[in-house]
C-alpha cells in the first residue's frame, strides 16, 4: 500500500473528546442564539404551568394560616421560581425526537461515525443551556418581583445546586434516550412517552413539592430516578437540607446516571440490531 492510502495518525482519545465537547458547545450556543425569539416564547409559555401551581398552593396556604405542611406562600414561590430554571436545565434530546432522527436519515450518518451517539446530544444540549440561563434571568427577576419568594440559600447549597442541575441533566438524558429506543419498533411511541412523562410529572416534584404527596408516593419516589431530575435540585436550593442529605442526593444522581446508562446500552444494542435488520 502506498503511503498516501495509509490512515492518518490519531490524536489522543481524551484530547479529541474534549475538543469535540468544546466545539459542540460553541456551535450549539451560536446556533441557538439565532433562535432566541422562539426560545423566549417557549420559555414564557412554560412559566404558565408553575405559576398556576404556585397560585393555587399559595391560596391554600393563606387560607390555612400561612402554610401547607409547613411550606409558606413565600417558600412555594421560591420552589416554583427555581422550578423554572431546573425545568429548562433538564431539557434533553427527548424520546419522541428519536423518531425524527431515524426518519430524517440522520441516524445512519451518526452510526457511520466513530463516536458514541450520546455525546452528540449531551454536548449540544449542554451548550444550549448557556443560552437558556441567559434568557432566564429576566424571567426570574420578573417572577420574583411579583411573587416574593422566600429564598436564602447558603454557599454550600448554591454549589450543590449548580452540580445538581447538571446531575439532573445527565440522569434525564440517560432515561429519555432509553425510552427513545422504542421508536425503533413503533412509530406510535407517542402514547407511551405521554405515560412516561405523566409518571415523571407526578413523581419528580414537578407537579408539587414531594413533601405534599401522600407518604407512600414519597417512598415510591425515593426508589425511582424522577425525583433526582427535578425535586432534588430544587430542594437543594430552597429546602434547607442537611449537608448529609445534600451529598447523598448528589450520590443518588451519580448512581441513577450509571443505572440509566447501563439500561441505555442494552436498549441501544437491541435497537441497532433491529435497525440493521430492517433498515431505515
Amino acid at each position, binding site marked *: 500500500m502506498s503511503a498516501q492510502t495509509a490512515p492518518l495518525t490519531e490524536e489522543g482519545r481524551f484530547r479529541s473528546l474534549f475538543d469535540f465537547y468544546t466545539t459542540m458547545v460553541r456551535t450549539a450556543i451560536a446556533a441557538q442564539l439565532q433562535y432566541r425569539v422562539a426560545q423566549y416564547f417557549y420559555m*414564557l409559555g412554560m412559566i404558565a404551568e408553575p405559576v398556576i401551581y404556585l397560585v393555587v398552593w399559595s391560596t391554600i396556604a393563606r387560607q390555612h394560616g400561612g402554610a401547607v405542611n409547613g411550606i409558606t406562600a413565600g417558600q412555594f414561590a421560591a420552589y416554583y421560581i427555581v422550578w423554572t430554571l431546573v425545568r429548562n436545565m433538564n431539557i434533553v434530546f427527548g424520546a419522541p425526537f428519536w423518531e425524527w432522527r431515524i426518519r430524517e436519515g440522520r441516524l445512519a450518518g451518526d452510526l457511520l461515525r466513530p463516536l458514541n451517539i450520546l455525546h452528540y446530544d449531551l454536548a449540544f444540549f449542554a451548550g444550549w443551556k448557556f443560552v437558556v440561563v441567559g434568557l432566564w434571568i429576566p424571567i426570574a427577576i420578573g417572577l420574583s418581583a411579583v411573587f416574593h419568594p422566600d429564598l436564602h440559600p447558603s454557599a454550600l447549597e448554591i454549589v450543590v445546586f449548580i452540580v445538581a442541575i447538571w446531575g439532573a441533566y445527565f440522569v434525564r438524558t440517560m432515561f429519555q434516550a432509553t425510552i427513545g429506543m422504542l421508536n425503533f419498533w413503533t412509530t406510535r411511541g407517542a*402514547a407511551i412517552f405521554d405515560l412516561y412523562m405523566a409518571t415523571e410529572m407526578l413523581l419528580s416534584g414537578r407537579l*408539587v413539592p414531594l413533601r405534599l404527596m401522600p407518604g407512600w408516593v414519597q417512598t415510591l419516589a425515593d426508589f425511582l430516578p424522577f425525583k433526582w431530575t427535578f425535586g432534588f435540585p430544587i430542594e437543594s436550593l430552597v429546602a434547607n437540607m442537611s449537608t448529609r442529605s445534600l451529598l447523598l442526593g448528589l450520590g443518588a444522581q451519580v448512581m441513577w446516571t450509571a443505572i440509566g446508562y447501563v439500561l441505555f446500552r442494552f436498549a441501544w444494542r437491541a435497537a441497532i440490531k433491529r435497525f440493521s435488520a430492517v433498515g431505515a
Partner: protein
Amino acid sequence: MNTLRVGWLYFRIGVLNELQYRVNFFVQLLQALIQVGTGLVMLSLVYSHTTELNGWQESELLTLLGVQILLGGFIHTFIQPNMELLMQDVQQGTLDYALTKPEDSQVLVSVRQVRIWQVVEVISGVILLFIGLSGVQGSIGPLDALAFVFALGIGAVLVYCFWLILTTGAFWVVRMEHVLELFEGIYQTGRWPVGVYPGWLRYSVTFLVPVAFAVTVPAEALTSRLHWPTLLLALGFAALLFAFTRWFWRFGLRHYSGASA
C-alpha cells in the same frame, strides 16, 4: 343556509379521512386518560390539604375540570387543526387555494379540518362533568342547564375568535406559531377558579386570552354561581370580539392579496 351545508360537508370528509387511522383512537384514549388522571391527582392533592378553594368545593372544581377538558377537546377537534393549517398556508403561500373557492373564505378556513379522534377528549370532559355534578349540593334547574349550554357556546366563540385573530396576525408576522404554542400552557389556567389568580393575571385570562370566560362562566352556571351581569358581559364581549375578528380577517386578506407575489 349554505354556510352550514359547507361546514357539514367538510366535517364529513374530515371524519371519513380520520376514521381510517384507527390506531389514533387508542392513542387518543390513552392521552385523554392521562390528562384526566393527572387532573384528578392534582385535585385530590389539593383537597387533601383543604376543604375549599376560593369558595369552590371539590365536586365543583371537578365540574370545572370537566368543562375545561370538554372545551379543550372541542378546541383540539375543530379549532386548532384549522388554525394550524391556516398558519401553514399563509407561510407557504398556499392560501390561494382556499381563497379562490366560491365560499366565504373565513368559513372555509375555519371548517376545513377536523381531528375527529380528539372527540374522546370531549367525551372524557363530559364524563368528568357529570361525576362532578353528582357531588354538587343543590340541583341544577333547567334555567341553569340552559345558561350552561349558552355559556359554553359563548366560550367556544371566544376561543375561536382568539385563535383566528392570532392566526390572522401571521399575514404580517410570519413566525406566529410561537405565540400559538403559548396557548396550551395558558389554557391550563382554566382548570382553577379565576378568583385564585392575582389581579393582573385574572384580567389577562379573562380579556387577553379569554380562557376564564370560556371555562369558568359555564362552570359557574352549573354550580349555581352565575350572575346575570357576568353572562351578559360574556355575551357582549363575544359579540364584539366576533365582529372584530371578522373585520380583522378581511383586513388581513386584503393585505395578503395586495402583497402576494
